[in-house]
């Protein structure tokens, strides 16, 4: 191999590594869809609607780990609205899977604290009053919410729960709910 071809090889290799690293480091997780998808959504003219593809994780009777389901949601202008949409989609469940949230539980509001990279979720009182109890059920609910949010939105590093607008000591007498929760992706691993 000549000196010139070695140089070409080295430069090509360096460019390839830089490209790959750039792709890995700066890739966006939002996926813009092509016109046919926008048309399906009834969008025309100069208005463009952005969708993101999200990966929702649910429990099942056959696995102790959360199972993935893919969905698409439209991106609103306000970030908090996107989180609300995502949570509404999450709470609506998926057939054949278990949603570890008592029925009729609703999200009252969502706050994103950018300085703390923390999402605050405020649920209605039913979250506590209709909660079935049990340590496993509490952990299932907490990590169902936290892992789903932190997995799909990398800007969320931790999640804090409020019930009826107030801090609550626990959901049903076990796990300390006054502190925010970091994700535990162990719940997502495959068996």
């Amino acid at each position, binding site marked *: 191999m000549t000196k010139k*071809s070695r140089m*070409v*090889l080295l430069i*090509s*290799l360096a460019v*390839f*590594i830089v*490209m*790959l*690293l750039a*792709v*890995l480091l700066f*890739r*966006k*997780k939002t*996926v813009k869809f092509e016109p046919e998808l926008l048309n399906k959504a009834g969008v025309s003219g100069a208005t463009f609607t952005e969708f993101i*593809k999200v*990966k929702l994780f649910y*429990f*099942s*009777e*056959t696995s*102790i780990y959360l199972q993935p389901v893919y969905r698409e949601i439209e991106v609103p202008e306000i970030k908090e609205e996107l989180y609300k949409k995502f949570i509404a989609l999450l709470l609506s469940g998926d057939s054949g899977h*278990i*949603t*570890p949230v008592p029925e009729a539980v609703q999200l009252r509001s969502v706050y994103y604290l950018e300085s703390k990279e923390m999402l605050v979720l405020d649920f209605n009182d039913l979250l506590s009053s209709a909660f*079935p*109890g*049990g*340590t*496993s*059920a509490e*952990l*299932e*609910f907490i990590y169902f919410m936290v892992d789903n949010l*932190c*997995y799909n939105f990398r800007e969320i*590093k*931790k999640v804090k729960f409020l019930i009826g607008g107030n801090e609550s*000591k*626990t959901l*049903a*007498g*076990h*796990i*300390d709910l006054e*502190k*925010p*929760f*970091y*994700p*535990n*992706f*162990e719940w*997502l*691993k*495959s068996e």
Partner: protein
Amino acid sequence: MESLLDAGSIPAASIAIFLRSMKKFIKPSTFFIIILALSPLLTALAVGIRTSDHEGFTRIVFEADRSFTYAVQKRPGQMQLRLSSRADFRGRTWAVQDSPLLERVIHEIQGNESIFTVFFKGDATVKKNFVLEKPFRVVFDLEKSEKPAAPLPSAPEIPEKKPDPPQENPPAPAKPKPIETICIDPGHGGEDLGAIGKSKLQEKNVTLQIGHKLKKLIESRTGLRVIMTRDKDSEVSLNTRASIANNQLAQMFISIHANSSFRKSAYGSETFFVSLQATDQESLELAQKENQNLEDPGETIKNDELKMILWNMAQTEYIRESSKLAEYVQNELNELLGTRNRGVKQAPFRVLMRTAMPAILIETAFISNNNEEKKLKNEEFLDKIAFAIYNGVSKFIYYYNNILK
């Protein structure tokens, strides 16, 4: 890991075209080398741990397939190695065999960080820490500490003791006393029914029955003093439960529960000890900072807040013992009950966080599972549970009184 390798947005086609065009210039073997060189970027950090004993010190080495950044936090009886990336380490707990200074290593993943908590035997301390290359290794040399243990945080509800009169010769650091008092905490009670089974069995009644049986066993077989956070169907707050144990100077806290899950098929028993969340670490650092400020006589505003933080952190000093107690009890539950072993786990339990003693929470069986609900109605099954917990507790007492000290 899936979360790190969500490759959906990598322009795979353009990479493939690029690689095909490069084939003209590069041999297939060079391709293999390139892919091999890049593969560590795409996988979780593979970490292995080994230990060795030498004259005067014990060495623990964290070896990885590539370099990583890390932070070390030292506390009495343990140290934490926090890696800035997620590590692939087989098993959550690794018990170190036959080491004079090391007991176990627990691995946890928090967000994108991996945390290795190394528990020492007795008063070990880190003498040296350095890094070696090829392969990348973080090495800690430990030696036996000469320093007495740090004072423990006290709960705000504990009445303050008057200081002892000054002595001419300060006493030697006191060794912790052998176990004399055990606190049993039957979960829920009163209007707090706990979880409810399909046939309306209530968790609060199951836990109280097991609690009474366990008290009787411990008192009759060991002669130790046993206190209960409730001995009838009454509602007791979680803070009060922890305060009862702290005020009565209990040296072991056993919270008894029956489990429930959204997955009706879930079954088995599991034992928990408290987990130290990252926010707890933030609280501890804040507490230490405030502690320094309190030395300044002008700074008294945050005293109550500090007490509260320290109370919340009360369990921190006992995690090693709590982990051991959980292990002993869970082993006995597995052996005697023949139910599914769900293992020893960690979670931020409010009642455990505030107890200043080895503390565990036992989920005996699933009341939400039809078969296990039937079992929990059976007196003999409850006897077996109480006996299994008693066996685990008695093994821990021996360990605590004879081996740990």
